[in-house]
């Protein structure tokens, strides 16, 4: 009896050659998986649907920060999220004084004429005092860092946007399928 395989009592035990082949096979598989996991292209996909001042910040802050982390970022803007990409409107986003229980005024007061303008002014003042970046600054910074802003074609048409009014670099002519593809490939997906 061979000293190589002292425990090999059964005839159907795999031979050394078979085991070596199997090990080689597994090593190849592991190399493939490692190559895939080690793929440095981390991706993030954000869907941005809201155009109020408070809801414009999270996607932009996360997009620019992820870009700083080396992520490839796409932000797909649809419905009121399109206002964030609109050069003029992005500088004049409003805060709603109703429907937000954290507002300092009750809804019945918040619904009075002029209240949205007042709460927006208050927020703008806080943003300025705190030296928080403006929406415009965040968009320009994100674009500089390679973030891709996409404007949903269906809602551009539905809501009558003029594509010329978007920031330079905004990608148009894209739809839900593009967003799904980005999300499918992304490591992080967010709906804002």
């Amino acid at each position, binding site marked *: 009896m061979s000293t190589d395989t002292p425990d090999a009592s059964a005839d159907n035990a795999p031979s050394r050659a078979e085991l070596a082949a199997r090990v080689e096979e597994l090593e190849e598989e592991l190399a493939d998986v490692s190559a895939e996991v080690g793929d*440095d292209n981390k991706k993030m996909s954000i869907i941005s649907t809201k155009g109020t001042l408070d809801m414009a910040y999270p996607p932009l*802050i996360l997009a*620019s*920060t992820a*870009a*700083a*982390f*080396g992520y490839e970022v796409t932000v797909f803007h649809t419905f009121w999220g399109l206002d964030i990409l609109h050069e003029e409107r992005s500088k004049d986003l409003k805060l709603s004084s109703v429907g937000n229980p954290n507002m300092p005024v009750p809804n019945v007061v918040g619904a009075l004429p002029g209240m949205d303008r007042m709460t927006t002014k208050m927020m703008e003042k806080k943003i300025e005092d*705190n*030296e*928080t*970046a403006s929406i415009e600054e*965040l968009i320009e*910074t994100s674009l*500089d*860092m390679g973030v891709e802003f996409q404007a949903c074609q269906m809602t551009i048409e539905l809501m009558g946007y003029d594509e010329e009014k978007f920031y330079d670099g905004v990608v148009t002519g894209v739809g839900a399928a593009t967003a799904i593809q980005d999300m499918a490939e992304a490591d992080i997906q967010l709906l804002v």
Partner: protein
Amino acid sequence: MSSQFDITETLDVKGASCPMPVVKTKSAIDELAEGEVLEVVATDSGSMSDIEGWADSTGGVELLDQVEDDDVFKHYVRKTE
């Protein structure tokens, strides 16, 4: 604190708040060569955690030190590749 390393460049982000300290740090690091050290001077207290997290998850940079000095937060980042 100062210093077992030579500072190549200083980035002043005093006053700026999240996410700008991290975002500008990344842009400034991109301008440096391998081995050079960036000093980031911030007043955002969140920058201590944010820049540490960024350096931890980002390839090609090494956080050498973080110092709080009279409400000013200083970060030292070396570009490693």
